[in-house]
């Protein structure tokens, strides 16, 4: 699979503002197309002795949907984001402390979880916590005729045979997190993985752009 074949694709337009919340140590609001997520990072904080860890910082992730009662799928999203961020944060630098990540859904038009992962990463960058690498999430859908659609819209997800979401790290572009729904062949999985891997470059470029614009203001 040659990555150059996919050079012409585009992701949904991304828009981001850092330091959106004044009380949090780091915060970001990110729009990917019409999906919008707000994330805040607080830490390292003083936490209860029972939840302290000798070796590394305890990461707590809270996901809050727009309305309605909290449910099991929120817990699932929290677990995905916590596991993903744990690999990225250098928690061993902050033993016996806690890091709290709070994510608020604002709009969901498909790709909520990928947007949440990217937004959390931007908020972590903004908070100044030490990180091993940054992560980028990209999603794609497989339609009934076997075509791959990068960053599907809400309607495309509803009609898709399968959806696949991948999170890559910035250093070696290896897979950090991946999850799928629906049935698909091995070939389709490999193609989706390679495409998303190539597309993750665009997300990393966007991170760089955001950080650069904010750095200029200080410098």
């Amino acid at each position: 699979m040659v990555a150059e074949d996919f050079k012409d694709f585009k992701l949904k337009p991304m828009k981001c503002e850092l330091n959106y919340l004044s009380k949090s140590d780091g915060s970001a609001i990110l729009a990917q197309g019409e999906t919008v997520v707000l994330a805040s990072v607080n830490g390292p904080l003083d936490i209860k002795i029972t939840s302290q860890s000798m070796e590394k910082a305890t990461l707590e992730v809270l996901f809050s949907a727009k309305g309605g009662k909290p449910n099991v799928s929120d817990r699932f999203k929290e677990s995905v984001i916590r596991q993903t961020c744990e690999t990225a944060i250098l928690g061993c630098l902050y033993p016996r402390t806690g890091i709290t990540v709070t994510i608020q859904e604002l709009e969901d038009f498909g790709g909520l979880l990928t947007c949440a992962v990217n937004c959390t990463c931007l908020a972590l960058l903004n908070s100044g916590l030490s990180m091993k690498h940054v992560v980028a999430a990209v999603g794609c859908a497989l339609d009934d005729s076997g075509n791959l659609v990068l960053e599907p819209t809400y309607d495309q997800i509803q009609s898709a045979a399968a959806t696949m979401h991948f999170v890559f790290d910035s250093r070696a572009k290896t897979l950090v997190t991946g999850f799928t729904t629906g049935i698909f062949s091995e070939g389709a999985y490999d193609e989706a993985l390679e495409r998303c891997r190539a597309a993750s470059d665009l997300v990393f470029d966007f991170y760089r752009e955001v950080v650069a614009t904010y750095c200029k203001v200080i410098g």
Partner: protein
Amino acid sequence: MSDVYKVIHPNKYFNDYISLNVRPDGRKFDEQRSIKLNANAISNADASALIKCGNTTVVCGITLELATPKAEEPDHGFLVTNVELLPLCSSKFKPGPPSDYAQVISNTVNDIIKNSKCIDLKDLCIVSDKLAWVLYCDMVCLDNDGSIIDACITTLITSLKSLSLPAVSFDVETEEVKVDISNKTLLKVTGLPVATSFAIYQSPESNIVLTDPTTFEEEMCGGIGANLIVCWNQGLLCGVQKYGGGNIPTESQKNLLQVAKKRSKLVEEVIETCLS
């Protein structure tokens, strides 16, 4: 002596084994544990199965119930899966409401079964908008020694395969329900989804993939939630999940899927033999 070593310096203990290309229990990296499967282990349940994957033991029981379908989906029955991790199976679990980990495991098992489309929920409907079957599938872990999702999926699918639904007659006028236990038909199950877990160990040199990890191996590889789970069904993938933990080396990616495919063939054979 080695037990003491394991307790006082688990990381070093584990790394010493891995650097010699062997796992603490003597397996090779891509070797799986032996499986024992028994169908209809519980006579009270409508269908049941018991599995032992190495030390991991899970029992699954299915009970049947009749209910009215939801208004939004009048021609669908219900398949309710639940995984229970009791304090009995590991010292990590405390009595009380299900922990976050148990909720995530339940959610994963439910997702895999739903994604594999092995059960058509329309088959569970008897009369549209009036009567449908509810399958309560309860999986209880008796001993947790890693790769619990693999064991759960296998017991669940074995139980579903052996489940037969009694004939039901429904009188539309009087809304009277008659269940004929003597006349039973087997539930239609398409394919046999089989999940395979991998743990990824980040050794200083490279990342090493361990097939069918034990609890100790899972702990060494970034915690219980960080496994890679690959699920095959009839030559198609129906779920590839991995949440954090060690990164998968690009070169071993293809190989992983093949290992999972081979294992799924073997497990399928085990299920077929067990039920025949």
